[in-house]
């Protein structure tokens, strides 16, 4: 068994995705008055995998799987199909502010967990002293 196991990796990828979501929310709110700006959103990897739960039927080993962006923690998508304002902008400021609060709490929680993990390891290294 290794000292730094899968937990730290998972937390790290979640932190990356949350930081990216923070950037996207900042961008959306900065452009709340920009005509024809379309809002962006971050989709986390596990959500992505849930959405693409079908298997590709492969008749050749060189065929590409449906599992897409598997090496990334998240993807950024532009929401093109809605209109919020009469200037072509679709930033829903209330939704963005709610998402901002949620994102902040998630980020803090992830860091708390990461610290908890490190403290566990520290405690083991010290031999429980």
């Amino acid at each position, binding site marked *: 068994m290794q000292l730094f196991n899968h937990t730290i990796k998972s937390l790290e990828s979640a932190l990356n995705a949350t*930081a*990216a979501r*923070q*950037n*996207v*929310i*900042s*961008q959306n*709110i*900065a*452009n*709340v*008055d*920009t*005509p024809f*700006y379309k809002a*962006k959103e971050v989709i986390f990897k596990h959500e992505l995998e849930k959405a693409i739960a079908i298997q590709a039927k492969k008749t050749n080993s060189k065929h590409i799987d449906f599992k897409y962006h598997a090496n990334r923690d998240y*993807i*950024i*998508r532009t929401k093109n199909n809605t209109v919020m304002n009469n200037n072509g902008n679709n930033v829903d*400021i209330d939704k963005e*502010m709610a998402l*901002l*609060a949620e*994102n*902040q709490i998630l*980020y*803090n929680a992830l*860091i708390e967990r*990461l*610290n908890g993990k*490190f403290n566990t390891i520290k405690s083991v290294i010290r031999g429980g002293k």
Partner: protein
Amino acid sequence: MSIFHSMHISASGLTAQRLRMDVASSNIANVETTRGRYVNGEWLPYQRKMVTLRADGERYSFHHFLKKEVAKKAGSGVKATSIVDDRTPFKLVYQPEHPDADEDGYVRMPNVDLLKEMVDMISASRSYEANVTVLNASKGMLMKALEIGK
């Protein structure tokens, strides 16, 4: 993408909203200005100004769209591209004693609508506040990230 990217984005939003505020105050200050520009030996009234905004980093070339689809980045904030004149006609006011009145006694007044300016001002200040909130949130997250491994 640097750590401070989201703070830079919010800062660009703050700059853009502050510029909108500046332009709105200029419009309100000049609501009665009959001598705005001197053109061909005659004074023109002040013309209402407007700010045009654009999402920064958005250009309209094939290369750009291709790169955008492949890389899927968050973008880099907002940019005020220009300050344009409002082309609506000037208001005519009957005031024969005014120094800038024409032969019939009419004065051309600026095309500034106080109500529009007030709405613009409130909109700019609310958007400014939203950007401040995001900036503080990003700051809080960065401070929290410094606690990793403490």
